[in-house]
């Protein structure tokens, strides 16, 4: 049983070490996904992880060959360029990959932040 209880006299039952352990696992998984060296987890910076992520998901160039058909503010279909609204867009698959990138970056940034605060409490 690893649940710790406070019944009035135990003092602090928060474990900074356990918190760090979990956040490091989350950071490590994302570093592994990005192909980074896990041996550097103690020294790697958030900037390096984000740069690696941006290299891994390089879908930032809007394409002129796909333009969604707009009705009001809703996308109703993907059509060829001449029927679009005059702007360029990402391909749907690239938009999906970018959403995945955003989710991973959101997660690793929080894990990095929470690890920093937990280390400060050790």
């Amino acid at each position, binding site marked *: 049983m*690893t*649940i*710790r*209880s*406070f*019944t*009035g006299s135990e003092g*602090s*039952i*928060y*474990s*900074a070490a*356990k*918190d760090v*352990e*979990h956040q490091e*696992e*989350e950071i490590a*998984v*994302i570093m592994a*996904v990005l192909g980074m060296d896990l041996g550097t987890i103690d020294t790697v910076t*958030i*900037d390096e992880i*984000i740069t690696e992520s941006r290299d891994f998901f390089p879908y930032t160039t809007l394409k002129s060959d796909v333009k969604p058909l707009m009705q009001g*503010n*809703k*996308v109703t279909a993907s059509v060829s360029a001449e029927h679009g609204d005059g702007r360029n867009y990402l391909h749907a698959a690239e*938009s*999906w990959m*970018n*959403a*995945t990138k*955003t*989710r*991973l*970056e*959101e*997660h690793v*940034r*929080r894990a*990095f*932040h*929470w690890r*920093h*605060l*937990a280390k*400060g*409490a050790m």
Partner: protein
Amino acid sequence: MAVQFAVTDLFRKNVVALALTKTSLSDMDKLMSGVRQDFYNHASDYVKAKNPDNRAIAGGHDPYFMMYEILKDMHPEWESYLWTSAEFRHLMFDLANPTKVFMAVPEGSHFTMKLVDQANGRDVTFLNGLDFAVFEDWWPTNAEVSSYTPRYSVMDHEDVLSGEGAGTYDFVEVHMAHLLGVDENLSDAYINLLKPGGRMVVVNSGAYKGMYLKRTMLHHEHYEPNMAFLKRDDLDVIHFPLDTGFTVITRHAS
């Protein structure tokens, strides 16, 4: 020329909700009440003392990084904005009247202190994280909550993942941030804490309303984690597009 302020429809809606709602905690536990304000001040000082890296590349403009700063010196729109969700959550809690509770974020409030008060006889477990560290650091310092006799437990993330306490909780409350990861393991692990018939509340499941504002919802990063709830055949899931997003999950009774 006088400065003109824009007021959003959401602000108007929440101001009306704030004015027309009343629960047992309305008068004593508003976000700007003395107890909460003291907690937010304490939390802000706690986080600042750890010298966090708040640059844009480190934070990605994530409100969670500045949450206690925002709450400490809150714009009135934020109070009505967050308070509506908080009251709705209290109402959900009262309806469920659970005896065994798991909460990821113990905010410093009368609600939380009543929850863990020994007199209520509830079995309350918190998640071993930043918010619990702040809560535990704060409550012994606040004279106004000294009348409570808190009893609570704490569980580590890794134990949640390994199935500790699975199938035993009546009520689980987490933020969407706790469920996100490279896969659905965290999401499944928190849902698995529920016993059959138990209820789970996921706060901020609409990504601070971002998922509703995105022109195509399926391109939002929180779309797939929300859809993951629907993949499981042992759950009823209701997503309320209420402000920051609010999802209620019930695990089937058997």
